[in-house]
Every structure is written in C-alpha cells, then in structure tokens.
C-alpha cells in the first residue's frame, strides 16, 4: 500500500512536469470543463429565473444538488479519467500489454498513468456552487457539516469510479468501451436535479441501481433538513460495496482479455 502511494505520487509529479511544460494546454483543458458546466448552469439560471421554484426546490437548493454531483464527478474526472480512454489509448494501441508485463497492478498503472487536469475545472465549479448555495441558504460550515460533505463527496466520487470501472471493463470484449461507459455515465445527469421531479421508477433507479442520487440529492436533502431517513447515511456503504464489485468485474474482464487478446 505504501509502495503504491509513493508510486502514485511519483506518477503525479511527472504528470505535473508535463502539464507545466504545456501551460497553455493546461489552462485550456482545465477551463474547458468550466465552460461546459456554464452551459448547464445558464439553463438552470434562465429557467429558474422565470419560475418561483422547481417542485418545491428553490434556485439555491437546486444549485446545491448540482454542485454536489459536480464535485463527485470531478473526483472521478481527475483520478480515473483513463477509464474512458482505455480502449483507444491503451488496449487498441497495445499499451495495455505493457502494463501486463510490469510488476505492478495493471489497474493501478492505468489510473496512475494520467491524472486528468480537466477535472480541476469541474472541481472548482462544484466547489463554487456548494460554497455559494450553502452561503445563500444559511447552512453553517460546522465541523460536522464539513465532515458530512467531505464523506458525501468522496463516496460520490467512488460511486462514479466504480460504475465507470464496471463499464470500462467491457473494453475486453468490444475493444472500445466508451459507448458503454457513456450510457451509464450519462444517467448521472438525472442526479443534477432534485430526484423528486422524476417518476418513481427513475428515483428507484438513481438510488438503488445506478446510485448517483446518493452523491447529490440525498446529502443535499439532509443538509437542507428535508427528511430522507437512512438514505442520508448510505453513500459510504454503497460506495465501498460498489468498488468491491467493480474490482471483481474488472478482474473477470482481465482474465477474458488474456484468454482472447481482444
């Protein structure tokens, strides 16, 4: 474990050396995600400016939900973005074979290989939204609230990573996993808004099947004093369980890869 942490640190250092060399690219990359976020936020702003509330949720309350999911997403974006590109930049190019002849875990190698600076933009947007909305809503930054938020965001990030890992594993069967990852990942957009605007079936899907809701709606509800019961506390447990499942799926895919080479 310590070995992997120092190695990760090393990979990260090297990555930053590259990023510093291409400073312009770094800025473009990190700010590009901000621009993408602005599109979504402008929509909410335009629409919410014309109506008093969305299903009982005010503008700032919606922003809190949106900010939480964005923060969780940014964790995945910064630390596990290679799960998206595993197909074209690793498996099809043959680079993945390289990981398999190195004496470290191939999944670790894959994730450590590229810290994705684009995610920083998402992180900043998410943090700004949470800061703005909590301030406007008068949610105090007590140690308890801060800790609760940190756990919620990290668990949310883990949920994103686990689901992406499961879908990325399809690369070992279809040589390009982006399509599959995209479909599952896209459902997180439901969780950008309060789940109450959806049909019951969708709420169940976002809570129990693809639990992105645990990263945004439930923690936000808890902080806002809306009653969601035990679901306010479930995200770390679910995140851990999902990670374990995802890793097993990945190992299964890896076995298939070495069986078929595709």
């Amino acid at each position, binding site marked *: 474990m310590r070995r992997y942490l120092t190695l990760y640190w090393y990979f990260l250092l090297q990555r930053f050396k590259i990023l510093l060399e291409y400073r312009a690219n770094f800025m473009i990359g990190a700010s590009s995600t901000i621009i993408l976020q602005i599109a979504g936020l402008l929509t909410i702003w335009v629409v919410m400016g014309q109506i008093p509330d969305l299903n009982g949720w005010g503008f700032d309350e919606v922003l809190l939900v949106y900010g939480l999911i964005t923060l969780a997403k940014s964790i995945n974006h910064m630390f596990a973005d290679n799960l998206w590109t595993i197909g074209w930049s690793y498996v099809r190019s043959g680079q993945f074979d390289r990981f*398999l002849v190195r004496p470290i875990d191939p999944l670790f190698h894959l994730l450590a290989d590229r810290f994705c600076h684009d995610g920083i933009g998402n992180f900043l947007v998410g943090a700004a939204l949470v800061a703005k909305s909590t301030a406007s809503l008068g949610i105090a930054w007590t140690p308890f609230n801060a800790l609760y938020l940190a756990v919620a965001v990290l668990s949310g990030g883990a949920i994103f990573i686990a689901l992406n890992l499961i879908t990325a594993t399809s690369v070992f069967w279809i040589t390009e996993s982006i399509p599959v990852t995209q479909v599952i990942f896209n459902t997180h957009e439901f969780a950008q808004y309060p789940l109450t605007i959806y049909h019951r079936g969708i709420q169940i899907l976002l809570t129990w099947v693809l639990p992105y809701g645990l990263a945004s709606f439930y923690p936000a509800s808890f902080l806002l004093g809306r009653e969601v019961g035990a679901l306010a506390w479930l995200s770390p447990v679910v995140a851990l369980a999902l990670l374990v499942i995802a890793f097993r799926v990945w190992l299964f895919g890896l076995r298939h890869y070495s069986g078929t080479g595709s």
Partner: protein
Amino acid sequence: MPIIQAENLSKVFRIPHKDPGVAGAFKAVLRPRFEDKVAVNGISFSVEPGEIVGYIGVNGAGKSTTIKMLTGILMPTRGNVQVLGRDPHRQRVANARDIGVVFGQRSQLWWDLAFIESLNLVAKIYEVPPARYKQLLDQFAETLELGELLRVPIRNMSLGQKMRAELAATLIHAPRIVYLDEPTIGLDLIVKERIREFIKQQNRAAGTTVILTTHDLGDIEELCPRVIIIDAGALIYDGPISTIKARFGKYREITFETLGDASACAVPPGAEIVGAEPRKLTLRFDRTLTTASQVAQAVMNAIEVKDFSLAEPDLASVIKQIYGGALREPVTP
C-alpha cells in the same frame, strides 16, 4: 535446466465475422457471428539460460502472439509454458520482475517526459535499488551512447534514438530474459549495428537470455546461433542457423552481364533462371549436379558475356525458399 519451456503451445482467437457492405454490417449488428483464427498451432521448444534465439516467420505467422504467451500477457488456448519455472500468466507479476520486453513500434516510455524522467519512473516501478540503478545507467549511457539523450523528451527523438532509449529502459532492472519483438524495424544500419552490439554484450556480460523476432536477417546472422522458424502458426524449423545454410548451401548463383540479348540463351542442365533482364542473367545451379564452369561455358557459347560473378546464397534467399515451402517437411537438425 531450460529457462523457457513451451509445450504444444496454441492460441486460437475468436474473431467476429463480417460480410461486406451495408447489409453485412447490419447483420453483424443484429446477429454477430464468430470464426476461429489459429494464430499459434502446437509449438514446442525450450531455451537454455544465456541463449540468443531468433524467432522468425512472415508477417502474421504468430511470432508476436507467441511472445505474448511467453510474457504472460495472453493465456495459451492449449498447451503450456514455463518461464523460470513459473507459469507466466498465473504468476504474471512475479514473472514480470524477471523479464524485459520490447515491442518494436510502441514505446514504453512517456511521450512527453524527458528520457531520464521516464527511466527514473521505470526504475521506481521495478524497484531497482538506487546504487544499482546508477551503475547500470552509467554503463548503458556509455554503450548505447545515451549521454546527450537523457534530457530529451521521447517525442523529440529519432527512431533510432527511441529504440536505444527503449532498450535501456527495458534492461534497467537487469531482467534475466528479454523478449525483443522486431527491435530493429525501420532503423538504419549504424543504429542496427549498435543495438546488436549492445544485445550481444548484455548476453555475454550478464548472461541475459534473449528471444528475438525480426525480419532482418542481419540480426539473425550476427546474433542468433539458433533460430526457430514458424509459418502459419506452426513450427517448421528449430536448430542452428548453420544447418540451414549447409542444407541450402548446395546452391550457387551466377550472374552474367551480356552484350547481346540475354533471353536468347538456353538454360543449361542443372541450373534454373532466378533473374533475367535484357542484358543481365542470373542462374542458380545445384553444385551436386553441375559445376560453375559447365554453366558458364554453356552460357558463353550461346551469347557474348561481358562479365560474370559467382555468389554464395545469402540467408535471405534461403529463408525465402523456406517460406516458399522448401521446408514443408520439418527437418531435424
């Protein structure tokens, strides 16, 4: 005690079957079909420590697939393989510490990093002790002339520089076996020469076992006392290079530069035409059936000859014959 032992090694790929055209593409979407592709077919061989073995065959013969099974990347469909007494697939990580792999055209180094940074990272991954690392680095820097390359990012290197860097990175953890999959592809003669020298030296000094696939017969002639030839996934020859040469060495080639039209000449008995141009004729003859002077005499009688030369067959033409089917019956050395 062999360091590598392959028994009846086979690899079968299942590949999706596609009919041509839009309709075919549609069909592939709705009901995918698969067919089997046998890439490696029942290959057995063993390699002793310290050997350099040339593994050769035409494109698609199954060389890379074999290497992938030996390195633990792929699991054999049938048969089994032992490397240093381990199953390279099941004990992949343990195996990885003891081997180094070069895949010809793709680099293991980080594109944008200065070469020395890449090397440091590789050394960290393989946990090379710092003192040892420094010593090997100095040694490689000298033999591969890396000195001025250390600060250069890989992306700015020429093909030859890249390959030298690649070799250094592959051997920096002093592996006991290195697999080189087409290491000299696309390189110029001087770089090739240096790389061969380096491989030889590693083999001599550190006793590193080397498995080398190549299309370059110069590599084979200079490096590999032993070759394994495969064709369509099956082994067709395993033995010393000298045996092949001796077996095909009974042929000689004689080239005439003529004043008149060379095609007017009848082919003397025991010889056959290998190349014919208007003013140039190349014949190959079997030394056990005829002699050089008989062939030359016959040609000179038919046309005016300006000059002629006699050549031993080079390995290239021998290999060409082997791929062409001359070895369909496997020879035992």
